[in-house]
């Protein structure tokens, strides 16, 4: 068996999610090669070569891949990947975009968002917003799989053993169907939401974007990332990339603090695998309390400032 992992990165650094995907690949077993496709990705390729369990790194460095346009990336991955038994990538928005295209080009099914590997062809994945867990067997010769990073502990970023070899590919695929126009990236010095050890999220109960500053102050004390419910994003309190849930980010931190969030199933789908869940809500009937390890029935406008004060005492 031979597995091709498509690295997730931003052209300058390797995303941690790639290490989770390599862990999933190790659970399948076999030689693991990593494909780094992008523009000026030397540092990413070097980082990938150091990761535990990686056999070889393939690099496709070209402007055509600089913005990860699915039309170009999928042609590359389909061509490079057809010699492998498995093609894996993280179920982030980049992987979700290009991977089904790869599967279609290879005329194989895709298994989305796996959280466990049962065997080389059988995988476990949540369906119905995590309200059911399916075990599925892929019957095609090439298994195209996206991996939910929180389902797998990352491999070590530095493997210790001899670094993998790095091979440059000169395959340039420009489908000519799409072009990059621009982007608005949210800037934050806080940890990445998807991989943070502590997440504090606000919901509609926060009332406006300014009030999120209260959560940010608490987050900075704890080294936490800040998230939000869909209602808070829809209301324009915070940007879309902070949404946690079925259709936002999936997080599984050591500690998740939900503030002014009711606990709709679509929100729970994104955070219910957290180790410890805290809910602060003034409605004691709020469904979030059914999944919370520690529930505090209180007005958040009193509780959050108090939380900040108490944390200052102990941290």
């Amino acid at each position, binding site marked *: 068996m031979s597995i091709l992992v498509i690295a997730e990165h931003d052209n300058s650094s390797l995303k941690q999610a790639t290490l989770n995907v390599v862990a999933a690949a190790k659970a399948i077993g076999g030689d693991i090669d990593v494909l780094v496709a992008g523009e000026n990705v030397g540092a990413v390729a070097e980082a990938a070569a150091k990761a535990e369990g990686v056999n070889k790194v393939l690099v496709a460095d070209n402007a055509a891949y600089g*913005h990860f*346009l*699915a*039309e170009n990336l*999928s042609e590359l991955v389909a061509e490079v990947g057809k010699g492998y038994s498995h093609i894996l990538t993280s179920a*982030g*928005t*980049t992987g*979700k*975009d290009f*991977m*089904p*295209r*790869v*599967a*279609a080009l290879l005329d*194989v*099914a*895709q*298994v989305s*968002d796996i959280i466990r590997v049962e065997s080389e062809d*059988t995988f476990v994945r949540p*369906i*119905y*917003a995590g*309200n*059911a*867990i*399916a075990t599925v*067997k*892929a*019957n095609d010769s090439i298994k195209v799989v996206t991996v939910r990073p929180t389902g797998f502990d990352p491999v070590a970023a530095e493997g210790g053993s001899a670094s993998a070899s790095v091979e440059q590919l000169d395959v340039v695929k420009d489908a000519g*169907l*799409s072009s*990059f126009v621009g*982007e*608005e990236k949210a800037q934050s010095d806080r940890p990445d939401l998807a991989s943070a050890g*502590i997440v504090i999220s606000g919901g509609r109960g926060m009332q406006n974007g300014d009030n999120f500053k209260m959560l940010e102050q608490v987050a900075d004390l704890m080294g936490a990332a800040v998230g939000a419910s869909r209602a808070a*994003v*829809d209301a324009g309190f915070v*940007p*879309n990339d902070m949404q946690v849930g*079925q259709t936002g980010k999936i997080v599984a931190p*050591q500690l998740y603090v939900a503030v002014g969030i009711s606990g709709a*199933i679509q929100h729970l789908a994104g955070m*219910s695998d957290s*180790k410890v869940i805290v809910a602060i809500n003034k409605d*004691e009937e709020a469904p979030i*309390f*059914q*999944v*919370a*390890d*520690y*529930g*505090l029935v*209180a007005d958040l406008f009193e509780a959050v400032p*108090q939380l900040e004060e108490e*944390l200052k005492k*102990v941290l």
Partner: protein
Amino acid sequence: MKVLVAVKRVIDYNVKVRVKPDNTGVDLANVKMAMNPFCEIAVEEAVRLKEKGVASEIVVVSIGPKAAQEQIRTALALGADRGIHIETDEEVQSLEAAKLLKAVVEKEEPKLVILGKQSIDSDNNQTGQMLAALTGMGQGTFASEVVVDGDKVNVTREVDGGLMTVALNLPAVVTTDLRLNEPRYASLPNIMKAKKKPLDSVSPADLGVDVAARLSTLKVEAPAARQAGIKVADVAELVDKLKNEAKVI
């Protein structure tokens, strides 16, 4: 220009999902079914394009059992012009759905195909991308804004770090995210009118597509339930528990 919208009949998003005792799947007997929420957004976007004079005709297509005609009728009541029902009682997976839709695209030759980014049952997030690959079209996935500009469409996409805008040659495939628009409700007169709008039925065999599943579901289980927690009296107790009991801060 012609716009094709694909819609799926799924369990209503408010329904509490229950796994069948024999672990073969989710219990769908006597539960409320509805149009997938992302598909509603797709229909709404097409209707808005028509209201702006960008779209001239909206064709809505659904794959599924006879009852999926209800969702087609809903789309017609919201403003689609005619429907195509690809009738099958089989479970149709993403790749096969994309192949069926490709056959419709070849016949209808729409300039834009709009689909939901995922359906809330299988949560696959695949069909739009697969359709784009099979038809050789560009794709604007997880769209929060769609602007048609001559022979191109600019799509702003919700991505992990924020927003990203791409320009696609038409024809193109767009998949909708939640903030693209807020779908309207169908009015009673429009629901009545929708009953008279044309709705054709075809079978996968008519379209020459083999819909045999490539993935087999071995079992479906309920997720592990979380242990019930406790209520704390105040913030001081909360912080104490987090520090000394859970040891997470």
